């Protein structure tokens, strides 16, 4: 889909859908939202729906950075301590690399 060819109201509704969808533990929707609507929100000359799009994109970015922070912390901790956790570590793992503690 090309955003250029979409009327502004539909852009807003699309951006809103992505923003709300992100709350269903889908941070990737927020990522898409931020990347996709960044130009519309901050670069394009102003239009009526732009303020709302701006808000959604900002909030999506905020939510996204929260997720990134949480996931990075967790992955670091998990990779670092998995072998020390022993059984818990193994149960938490989907695939266990062969021949490594």
């Amino acid at each position, binding site marked *: *889909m*090309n955003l250029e*060819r979409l009327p502004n109201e539909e852009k807003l509704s699309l951006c809103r859908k992505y923003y709300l969808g992100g709350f269903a533990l889908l941070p990737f929707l927020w990522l898409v939202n931020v990347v996709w609507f960044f130009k519309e929100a901050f670069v394009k000359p102003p239009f009526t729906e732009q303020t709302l799009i701006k808000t959604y994109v900002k909030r999506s970015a905020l939510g996204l950075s929260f997720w990134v922070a949480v996931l990075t912390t967790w992955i670091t901790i998990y990779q670092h301590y998995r*072998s020390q956790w*022993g*059984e818990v570590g*193994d*149960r938490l*793992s*989907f*695939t*266990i690399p*062969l*021949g*490594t*503690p």
Partner: protein
Amino acid sequence: MDLLSHNWIVYLTICLFFTGVSCNSMENKIYINLNYTMPCVRLLNATHQIGCQSSLSGDVGVLHVLESEDNLDLVLRSGLHPPYMVILETPLFTRSIMMKLKSGSKRVAGVAVVEPSANPPQGFSPHTKCPNENTGVYSENYGPSLAHCNTTEWNPLGNGLSYEDFDFPIFSLKDDNDTQVIRQCYMDHNRALNGSDPQYPLCAMQLFSHMSAVTNTATCMRRNSISFSISPEMVCDPLSDYNIWAPVKPLNTTEKGHKAGESVVIASARLDSRSFFSDIAPGAESAASGLVTLLAAAHALRNATQEAQLNRTIFYTFFHGETFDYIGSSRMVFDMERNQFPIDLDNIHSVLEIGQVGLLSNSKLWLHTDPVSRRNSSIEEEVKNLITNLQAAANGLNVSVEEPAATQPLPPASFHRFLLARPFPGVVIEDHSSSFTNKYYQSMYDNPEYLNLLFPPDLTPEEQLNHISDTAKSLTEVATLVARALFVQAGGEKSQISTIKADELTVSRMLYSFLISSNNSWIQEIISPEHVGHLNNKTTNFYISVLDQTSLPALLVKQMLANLTGITVNVTEEDCRNQRENKDDTESQHLYKYLWVQGAAAPNGTQREGFCIRSTVSWSKALSPAFELEDYTSSIYSTWTESRWKKIKGRIFLVASHDLEMLTLGVGIGVLLTSLLLTYIISSKVDILFSSGREPTSATY
């Protein structure tokens, strides 16, 4: 059209064929694969991992043939081309060198040990000084002063290498063409000439032995059982095999637990050995000498025990996995305690164990007993009785028996596991009074040469099979002694024992089968047709196998014991395989086992006349109780597991210098980037470059 497509397929196939071939030949041009590669593999127990492993993609190092210990400096410090793949001549395969390599393992890619043609005269044992230190009977609660080999170090030459963990691969190479190629490659490319450093390309070797399991048994068993992953994969298997046993009198084996009125004398030997390398476990002295003796004794007793009505039952037992913390014996005792075995501990009268008996000095055998249980007067009386019987049995034989110092503990033996359950009277027969006579305990040098199993030159394999060597003669004497002692111990008349004699020819054939080649005419006669494929022309590997597999020694002992103690019955093959004498017979299977064997080949043809053997020989699982109880951190039972692996391989090739490799890579990346840039420029200027006057097609979405 049809023909055309047909042609196409043919062309395509030919093309693919040639591509395949040329790929192969390309690989062959680069690599020389090693034919004979025996790795050291990873084993795990409750607390540790031992053995060796490579990385997943194999470890590569520049070859360095170590000439002396001083030469190590090049590998560990001064050499300019680390990591090194060290080729060790066997005299240098010592603990001190191996530990230095282990500590400098960043500069060591791996080690290859060249098997020698002669055994090192100073002795070599990669086992510990105190075998099965923690699973024997002596502990803080039982004879604390004797625990941990405090009074007698059984294996003083033991350097413990087998129980170290190396993070690089270690392979054993036969001294043959492969090693010649390696040496030549080293001489041509890697040798420093006139003090200057060798120039690239250098000869390198790559070893693959990546192990799946890690840390300890609890971890690997847990990972075996996790089925959450997409592709659940087993990472390790418990060491396991079969104990082979046979009572001289048929016992109902279907009914488990206590047998009223039954008193048995256990005559046991161990069935396994090991060495530093997996699948090289000749165990000539440490396993074969004892089990051949017991088999010969069982054979000698066949007629005597059938004629005389003995009031006790002799129970021949061959325990598997004793090297690894008494797997077989601990399992049998465990089964007896839980009424899962045809007899229980109350049925046991006494135990006579045959240990290492192949290297007699002055024809003396030593009767080892447990000083702690002998403090009990009733046990002491029975032990004395057994010793008297053994001494009486030695009368008129070329061997004599003696007792070592009264305070000396029991050497490592299966009997420990019986004593752990309760005090039993028992004797362990060995050829050493204190420390082992065996200089090569649990090593690859514990081979037929060490047992002095020599044949005059120019003998055909058939003649070798039937040749009676001095070793066979000496073991026959020991077997006669054991048979006579067992006969008296079981309640036989002392006056009859002179008629009991072990057969030299049978002993010779057994030694040949275990130590030279199991694929011989005698074994062919007495083996079941379905097992023929297991026979080979090599020294039997006494290393225990893993769960749901049977090792060759257990199979051979089963077949030999059945033939040496059983009788031939006139039963059809079908009935024989269904464990019955005839169609209506449902009782015999509880008392006997029926084995269909190939029989001798007719002299004029290959047709064999099979027959059925009825014997009391039976087998039970030798899997450590720890795996039955799922207690993988057990300190009383063996917890040994063997890691799984995917690829065991070794190859040599020439490597270019690091700079040249980087240059090649750089040029490659450069070419890629240039071509990308060119493509971009061309596609952006496509209108100018390829202006054909066509209307550009409008983009549609």
